[in-house]
């Protein structure tokens, strides 16, 4: 459970969390679904406390809990609880009512089915980036100017996939000081034969007027459809709003979190790293006289986002709540 110290990136975190939970489920002793859920919940809490800013861990724990619920219900009734999403609300309520309280009954092959479903989940995580990338041609058109910020694996794959089909477009990369991940992305894109320009963070507004589309990655998609993305994103989103440039956010489904931004004090949900990147430690005496902050994230409100591209397709921010109820059980929102 000390993985998070060494594992970087939401994708790795999500994948490792599921792998770990598979091991826990297969190796610990439990007799029924309730016990299993308690175990998963307890381990999940530990994992989350070890890295509070990685929401992907909590998301995956909730997904696994949902899987256990579903498999339990289907094992019990011999049919899937999930059914078809178009199912009537009344019907759904009725079926849900039957098995919400009692998870203590033993179900045959619960372990096997749960692990099988989790393997599917792992496959989903693995293929999520590809699934998003394949939608690229629908969003990137010929001779468009696209702006992106920082370095997101998903966006990188998305853009490269469009370039693979010989679509001509230009990319402007915001470097995102002080981490300068944008520069890495620009190098990678240029190598793939995409016409790339790097700009500094302060030039965003000046350049925005000639941009056709902003395509960004994110760290987390919040429950209200807002974003927890790399710092500087909010400024880009506001500039895009000013010029009515659509903002497209590429995010794998495991980044979808049932968390809300509780207060306007961003410090609570933000992550502050060492000030080293902002001002060098060797600057000397002045350091004891100044406060240096190096926040990693920015909150972008949902009204600034035009479209989400999940691995399951494009979604408007206002529809995120629906996906949430599809992925997570309401009882699991608070672990």
């Amino acid at each position, binding site marked *: 459970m000390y993985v998070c110290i060494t594992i970087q990136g939401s994708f790795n975190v999500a994948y490792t969390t599921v792998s770990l939970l598979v091991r826990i489920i297969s190796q610990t002793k439990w007799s029924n679904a309730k016990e299993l859920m308690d175990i998963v919940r307890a381990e999940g809490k530990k994992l989350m*406390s070890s890295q509070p800013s990685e929401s992907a861990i909590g998301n995956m724990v909730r997904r696994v809990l949902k899987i256990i619920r579903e498999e339990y219900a289907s094992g019990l009734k011999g049919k899937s609880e999930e059914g078809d999403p178009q199912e009537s609300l009344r019907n759904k309520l009725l079926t849900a009512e039957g098995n919400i309280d009692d998870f203590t009954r033993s179900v045959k092959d619960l372990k096997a089915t749960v692990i099988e479903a989790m393997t599917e989940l792992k496959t989903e995580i693995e293929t999520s980036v590809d699934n998003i990338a394949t939608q690229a041609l629908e969003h990137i058109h010929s001779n468009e100017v696209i702006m992106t910020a920082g370095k997101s694996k998903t966006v990188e794959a998305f853009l490269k996939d469009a370039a693979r089909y010989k679509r001509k477009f230009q990319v402007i990369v915001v470097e995102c000081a002080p981490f300068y991940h944008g520069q890495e992305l620009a190098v990678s894109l240029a190598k793939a034969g995409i016409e790339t320009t790097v700009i500094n963070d302060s030039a965003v507004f000046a350049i925005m007027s000639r941009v056709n589309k902003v395509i960004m990655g994110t760290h987390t998609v919040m429950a209200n459809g807002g974003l927890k993305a790399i710092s500087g994103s909010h400024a880009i989103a506001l500039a895009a709003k000013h010029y009515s440039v659509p903002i497209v956010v590429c995010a794998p489904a495991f980044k979808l979190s049932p968390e809300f931004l509780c207060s306007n004090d961003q410090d609570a949900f933000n992550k502050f790293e060492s000030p080293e990147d902002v001002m060098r430690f060797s600057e000397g005496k002045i350091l004891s006289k100044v406060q240096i902050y190096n926040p990693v994230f920015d909150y972008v409100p949902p009204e600034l986002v035009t479209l989400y591209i999940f691995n399951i397709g494009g979604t408007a921010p206002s529809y995120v709540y629906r996906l949430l109820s599809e992925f997570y059980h309401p009882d699991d929102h608070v672990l």
Partner: protein
Amino acid sequence: MAPKGKSGGANSDLKQEDILQAVVFADSFVSTFAPVSDDIPRALFPVANSALLDYALEFLCSGGVQEIFVVCCHLAGQVREHLKNSRWNDKSSPCNVVPVVTEGCLSMGDALRDIDAKSLIRSDFVLIYGDVVSNIKLQPIIDEHKNRREKDKSAIMTMVFREVPPGHATRCPQDDIVLAVDNETQNVIHYQRIADSDTKHLQFPVEVIMEHKDVQIRYDLLDANISICSPQVPQLFTDNFDYETRDSFVKGILINEEIMGNTIKMCVVKDAYAARVSSLQMYDAVSQDILNRWTYPFVPDGCHRHNKDNFSYGRHNIYLSKNVTLARDCMLVENVMLGRESAVGSKTTISHSVIGKNCKIGNNVVIKGSYLWNDVTVEDNCVIETSLLCNNVTVYSGVKLSPGCVLSSKVCVGPSIELKSGTVVVHSQEDDFGEGTMDATDGGCDAMFGSKGKAFLYKDTSGDDSDVEEVTRQVWGITIETESSSDEDSECSEGSESPPDSLQPDVPVYYTEMLDTVQRSKDENISCENLILEINSLKHAYNISIKELTGLVVKVLLDQPFSENPSLSGAQALKVLTDSLKRHLMVLKNYIKNEESQRQCLEAIEDFASASSAHLQLVTKVIHFLYEADVLLEQTILKWYRQVPSNRNRGNNSDDEDLEDRDNKHAEVRKQVAPLIKWLEEADEESSEED
């Protein structure tokens, strides 16, 4: 249970025997932190509410170290207990932490010899002290070390430094180092701790420059004492029992580089944090650096906390634990940390401070730049500035602690008193006869600590002088300086003056010493050769330059008969003096050779003559005697005579009046010598006529 991370996993699968080990010294073997460290080992000091040792272990663990030996000496039981209750003892712990109790070790060398005797080290290992706080990424440095070792077996150690320019707050004068590095090979050629040399001058061996083409000399490095060592290092400690510390080891290796062929490499880290809590000043600096998040990810709200204290991080670097009670109108300004279940009263202002668990702070209190450990009570209307309050301290109402106070555990002070800057207070004290300890609870404590006070002024029992002032300066010293710049200036000027001061007194001491020697040589009839030897050895012992020496020798030889018998005068004096000079002629000839030394001899005679009128009468005879004995040459005497006395004033710190006085005396001397000079000139003319 821990899944394989990026680090370690793959390596250990390939080579099972090649796990990375580390040795941590949970003891510093020095008493910089006395009296605080008397009942709690330094490694367990809470720094930002977490034991210092845990930072070191976290740092090693994140660097992929899988087995850590924690060497415990001083208060070993506490360290073991801590490790037992920590997450390092969990089954899920990512690395194996083994406490190694080596009681009776007095130095790091002893401890390493013990490690070697137990043959715990199997491969390259990391060697650090338990008071290191760092977030350096060890993996690349270790890899580099191993790669280098594969090519060159002699590179036995890599020292890791952090680039910190002079004047930085996280730099402590005691730890200042200068080192010379060969640019080509990155070999450390010279390593020197500045605090060790008592002067402001640094001496470099010439070989440093002569034998290496491309050398860089660096003063901008902070030595956090992190080193990657090969398994030979403990063996070398065993072979050389005189290696006590890492410094002496490094010195030994560098000196024997030619013979043994072992080299030490260096690695300078520019973008990560590393520091050692080596003094209270560094304790302060490191704590503030942690609050400022330089040590990320090892910050109070970071993932490494497993002590059930989840700190939440807020604006202005405010860290709050769970169940903290804050009055509505209290002010937490910036860089503040409050531990579990602490309470802060109304209208209280706290800034740049760390408050431990279960502390109660009253109303109208001002706490600035201070460190309160666990279970501290501060009553209303107190002012606490730049002080350290250890566990279970009680400060009654209305107490003012000036910067630099240290209250060690269980101390109670107040009410309504003021402790002056740099006071170190302890709870119990060894009484003056060294028979058992007096406890403050028995009463009989100093009145200066208030009516409810249970405290004693700390006296350093280990040192020979119990000068409290000095001790406190050692403890907090420079932190007080950084607080107010005026203080700093005065300290600085003091510092720059002191080295010449320390040299100056040697001359009079040397003079009396030599006088004694000459006296003894006369009494015991020691031969001149031996006397010369003794004088030479004295010269080395007191660091006297050869220039000064000549004058001193002459002065001593002239003064000696008079110091023996002060009432000597007239013809008797002359007889004794010439006897003495005759006896010591060889000594004089040994030192007086060239013109320069002759001139010094004459000056010494002049000084001697101006001391009293009795001496004045002797001066002609003395010079004549020396001329006859071929010690002084004619030209030199004449030259000296013609010289204007004030010209050769050596810039001594005498006033004008003094100078005038001396000039007068010198004129008198010249008057006295005039007949001799005349005779000399005539003799000169005669001889030239003869030619």
